[in-house]
């Protein structure tokens, strides 16, 4: 579709397509996944693009596999990743649950990968409407063991592209799985997208080498990857090593967008689709003279706690965590605020997308009575 030589131009892309195209540009040459609504267009896009690429660049050996299940997909990724290939899988909530064991393995083995979750409503089969109810799973590691994944939460289709492109670099840099989370709205919606000059098509040959990769032991001693480390002291050492890496990520990578926060005495915190609603609601409130601001976490892990804490220290009257679920991120807001101000929650689960008007009403109510948590 887009050739790497093209100079930046606007395209009208679906969220899932933006993710797919950004992945291809970032040098992803291995995709394995399994259909599930509302992200089917992503594997569909990849099946086509990998095929086209195979014709254009056979030496890049692009691979698309529709695996027999989500479990199989994530474990195929493990294999692809260990060879050094940039790789991606995608799914939606139930399918992401099935990948938890594999994600834990990859984190334990320090293997990079990009995992896209176009969330749907849950629990169970739930529905396919926009929802943010996998926040806990994404940010706490739904799998077992001490690990975290970087979690990126785009709020526009442009960001779906930008953050996916970046996700591959982050994954490689930290040798850790990176999650990109959206919802049915982010995945299905089309918006204008520009691939910037600093986001060129990257050919595999030009990607930074991965000296740790396994490609056969020619010319060097053989080596291996594992997550089984039986002696507790060795396992502990390994865990602390991972921990220090995670701490580094926590120091370096938290990211948030701040909208009219400087003089705000009330701050809404929201990500992804909810942040779009919130942005509009905040504007409405400002128009009415209410000093309301918005903090939009772009990384859900590492969480931008510091900026929230600093905002709280500046004397904000109250915070409102606004989520399309029953209250999950509110924990992180509370942990950041740590009692400095009341933290309120407003959310709607199940795929109901509140309107800016509705949210503005909630904001106004709390604004007038900030101390009382609901």
């Amino acid at each position: 579709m887009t050739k790497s030589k093209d100079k930046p131009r606007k395209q009208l892309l679906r969220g899932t397509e933006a993710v797919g195209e950004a992945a291809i540009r970032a040098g992803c040459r291995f995709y394995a996944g399994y259909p599930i609504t509302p992200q089917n267009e992503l594997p569909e896009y990849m099946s086509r693009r990998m095929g086209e690429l195979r014709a254009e660049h056979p030496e890049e050996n692009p691979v698309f596999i529709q695996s027999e299940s989500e479990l199989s997909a994530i474990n195929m990724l493990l294999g692809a990743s260990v060879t050094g290939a940039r790789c991606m899988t995608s799914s939606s909530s139930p399918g992401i649950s099935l990948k938890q064991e594999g994600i834990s393995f990859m984190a334990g083995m320090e293997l990079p990968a990009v995992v896209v979750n176009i969330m749907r409503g849950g629990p169970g089969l739930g529905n396919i409407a926009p929802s943010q109810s996998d926040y806990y799973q994404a940010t706490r590691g739904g799998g077992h063991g001490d690990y975290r994944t970087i979690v990126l939460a785009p709020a526009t289709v442009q960001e779906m592209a930008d953050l996916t492109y970046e996700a591959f670099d982050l994954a490689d840099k930290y040798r850790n799985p990176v999650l990109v989370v959206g919802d049915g709205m982010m995945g299905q919606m089309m918006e204008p997208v520009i691939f910037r000059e600093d986001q060129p098509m990257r050919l595999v040959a030009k990607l930074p080498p991965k000296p740790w990769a396994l490609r056969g032991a020619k010319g060097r001693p053989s080596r291996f990857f594992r997550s089984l480390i039986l002696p507790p002291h060795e396992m502990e050492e390994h865990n602390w090593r991972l921990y220090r890496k995670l701490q580094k990520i926590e120091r370096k990578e938290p990211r948030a967008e701040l909208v009219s926060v400087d003089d705000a005495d009330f701050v809404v915190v929201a990500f992804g689709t909810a942040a779009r609603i919130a942005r509009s609601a905040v504007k409405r409130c400002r128009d009415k003279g209410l000093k309301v601001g918005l903090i939009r976490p772009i990384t859900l892990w590492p969480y931008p706690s510091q900026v929230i804490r600093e905002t709280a220290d500046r004397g904000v009257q109250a915070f409102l965590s606004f989520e399309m679920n029953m209250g999950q991120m509110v924990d992180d807001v509370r942990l950041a605020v740590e009692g400095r101000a009341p933290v309120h929650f407003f959310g709607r689960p199940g795929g109901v997308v509140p309107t800016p008007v509705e949210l503005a009403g909630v904001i106004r109510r709390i604004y007038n009575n900030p101390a009382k948590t609901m």
Partner: protein
Amino acid sequence: MLIKTLFAGAGGQGVLSMGYCLAYAAMQEDLHVTYMPAYGAEVRGGTANCTVVVSDEDIASPIASSPDNIVILNNPSLVRFTNFGRPGGSYLINSSLVNGKLKRSDVTSLYMPASELAEKSGSLRNANMMLLGAFIAMSGVVTMDTMQAAIADIFAKKNKKVIDINQQAVQSGYDWAAAELGKGRAAKKKTAKKPAPKARAAAGR
């Protein structure tokens, strides 16, 4: 300026293309735009619809609980979306495929026998593009120039003939509607003040 338009019809009627063309054209006018298909993929059914939101600011939600404009391509959609449009908004209806009229008086409505017109003009498959042309005449969300350019862009990979056919269909729909509206209050619209530079008000408000 914030204009939300819903296109609704049966699968295969080209409803999604209509929305896509509108969104593409709006993008070319450097407006903020979102296009959102209704994805009911977990339940089968013959209906399809999509929503296009055009604005000169950030768009909160690409879905609309009460769209400004609704374009109806068949009877089931008319039934389903009768109460959906915002009071004061407008309906454009393919009268060839609906039974009777819209049972509302608080909205502007325009009935276009698009299927018949299309069939007469050569191919039933052009009905959607004719409706799109009519919609532009009615709403002015984008200019016809932009739309014609957008169509050339969108079908660039296909042959010239496809582009021509579509451009002609859009134009003929536009002309039909301009004439139809001219009979009524089209003139009024043409002089309506534009709320923001580069943005055009929804017709019929």
